């Protein structure tokens, strides 16, 4: 019992530090990648001077995130005289908290057996093995959708409570857009659920560890390449980023539903958006890119299709799985940033048209074809 608690606390600490780390790093990655993509240098002015010397540590502008955080903490927290200050104050947290909670059901590694890591740990943990996931829930994907649906409420609250027409317009846009794309998001995942026969994310990842046709890794993107594209598109729209950033379109709505927010409250909205990039990356990795699995890798080591095997100690396997998961998430995040700095923005009616008249039928068609295929293969 105590051992379970310790393991859960360790996992929670790991998950929160990973998310916060991604949120901080991604602000830098976004700036730097955008700069390199457009032949610029990017943020490189913030520095830390070693006290007493003239040595300035610039580190490719990594300290800009710290400078931004400090700025947001220290600047004036302007509050509008609004008719609902409670909703105004609580809205950033309603946006921010569900984003963190989604990560609870995402498996970020295989099984962890502390006794195999280091023998003396067996006295406390026994021979028990824990899946590296905060909450091993059977309802995995459903929890993800339930929590990510909560952020709509936060955006709507922020817009409604700040007594500002720009905020209100942004909130309305955010609400209709997120509800539309949530549908597409769920429909694209439904095909995968049909194939794997479960909504438990840990089981889904385990079922992706094998191979198809002897050499292809059995990842979701191999079974459902079309759904993968639709999922990523809908997820970017759900995250309200360019090309779907209509709720916060600067040229039309100043900052959309968080126009009236300043200082760290606005920082929470921004931070939630960046963490959500990481969450989308983690979800895409879990569902379509085989989670923490490397091709041909099992919990015991590598087993190549030619017949060769490489045995690995448990510690190495755990570290590899953690690192592979982070790397895949980072690559997906980087791809999202690439999209964000490449595509122009939709017009607002086009966004909804795109969801209902283009992606929704495609997702439905994908689901039908998958259902037929699964039925034919089972029969």
């Amino acid at each position, binding site marked *: 019992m105590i051992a379970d608690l310790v393991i859960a606390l360790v996992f929670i600490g790991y998950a929160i530090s990973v998310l916060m780390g991604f949120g901080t790093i991604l602000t830098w990655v976004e700036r730097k*990648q955008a*700069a*390199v*993509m*457009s*032949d*610029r*240098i990017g943020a*490189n002015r913030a520095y830390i001077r070693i006290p007493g010397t003239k040595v300035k540590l610039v580190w490719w502008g990594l300290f800009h995130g710290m400078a931004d955080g400090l700025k947001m903490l220290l600047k004036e927290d302007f509050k509008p005289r609004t008719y609902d200050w409670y909703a105004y104050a609580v809205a950033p947290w309603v946006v921010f908290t569900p984003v963190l909670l989604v990560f609870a059901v995402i498996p970020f590694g295989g099984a962890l057996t502390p006794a195999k890591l280091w023998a003396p740990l067996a006295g406390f943990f026994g021979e028990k093995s824990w899946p590296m996931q905060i909450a091993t829930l059977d309802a995995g994907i459903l929890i993800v959708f339930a929590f990510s649906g909560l952020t709509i409420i936060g955006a709507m609250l922020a817009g409604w409570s700040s007594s500002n027409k720009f905020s209100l317009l942004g909130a309305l846009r955010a609400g209709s857009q997120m509800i539309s794309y949530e549908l597409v998001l769920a429909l694209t995942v439904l095909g995968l659920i049909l194939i794997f026969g479960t909504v438990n994310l840990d089981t889904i990842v385990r079922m992706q560890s094998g191979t198809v046709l002897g050499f292809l890794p059995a990842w979701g993107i191999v079974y459902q390449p079309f759904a993968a*594209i639709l999922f990523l598109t809908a997820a970017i729209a759900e995250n309200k980023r360019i090309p779907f950033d209509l709720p916060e379109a600067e040229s039309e709505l100043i900052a959309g539903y968080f126009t009236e927010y300043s200082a760290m409250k606005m920082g929470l909205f921004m931070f939630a958006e960046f963490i959500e990039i990481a969450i989308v990356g983690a979800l895409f990795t879990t569902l379509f890119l085989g989670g923490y699995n490397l091709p041909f890798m099992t919990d015991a080591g590598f087993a190549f299709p030619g017949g060769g095997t490489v045995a690995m100690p448990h510690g190495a396997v755990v570290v590899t799985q953690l690192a592979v998961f982070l790397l895949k998430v980072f690559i997906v995040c980087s791809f999202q940033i*690439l*999209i964000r*700095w*490449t*595509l122009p923005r939709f017009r607002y009616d086009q966004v909804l048209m795109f969801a209902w008249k283009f992606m929704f039928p495609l997702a439905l068609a994908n689901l039908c074809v998958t259902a037929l295929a699964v039925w034919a293969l089972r029969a």
Partner: protein
Amino acid sequence: MSRKPHVRKQYWNEAEMGLWERSYLPEILRGLFITGGVFMRNMAKWMTGRKGALTTYYPEETRWDYAAANRGKHVLTRRPDGSPQCIACNMCATVCPAKVIEIEAGFDPADTAHPKFPVRFEIDYSRCVFCGLCVEACPEDAIRMAKEVPDLPSADRRTMWLAKEELLQWQPQGDVAKPYPPAPPGAGKADRS
């Protein structure tokens, strides 16, 4: 009154999209490949220690390709004996549209040809517009503009002044338009550098 239905104007160079462009995804992929390619190319340059951008890190680096006629910073020319050629006539300060030149004149009775000389000659670069009118107004060719820019970026505008000492640091002393006649022997000279 019935409203006329809106008819969209047709332009002579209207973009025509075939089925390939209209299907959206291939064109998006093409765009992603272009930006991704630029990213990869620049990233490869950064990784191998070259610069992946044309930008100059301004205060640390200065451009080498300033034009010879670039109006960068002011220099005060000198006579062969090293004294400033300026006669403190205040014409540059008068013509200056930004009013950044401040001159305090001094009087040297021993120098009969040019008894007036600048005690202080200061330029406020935080306001200077680098128009070069001072150079054109100067009757003595005492002020010119060199192509190098003043190295003054700072967080405090009060540190952006250049005084006579710095302005006189221009090296080619032989290149002055009006060589000063040699001083008559025995004439005492006031210290005025």
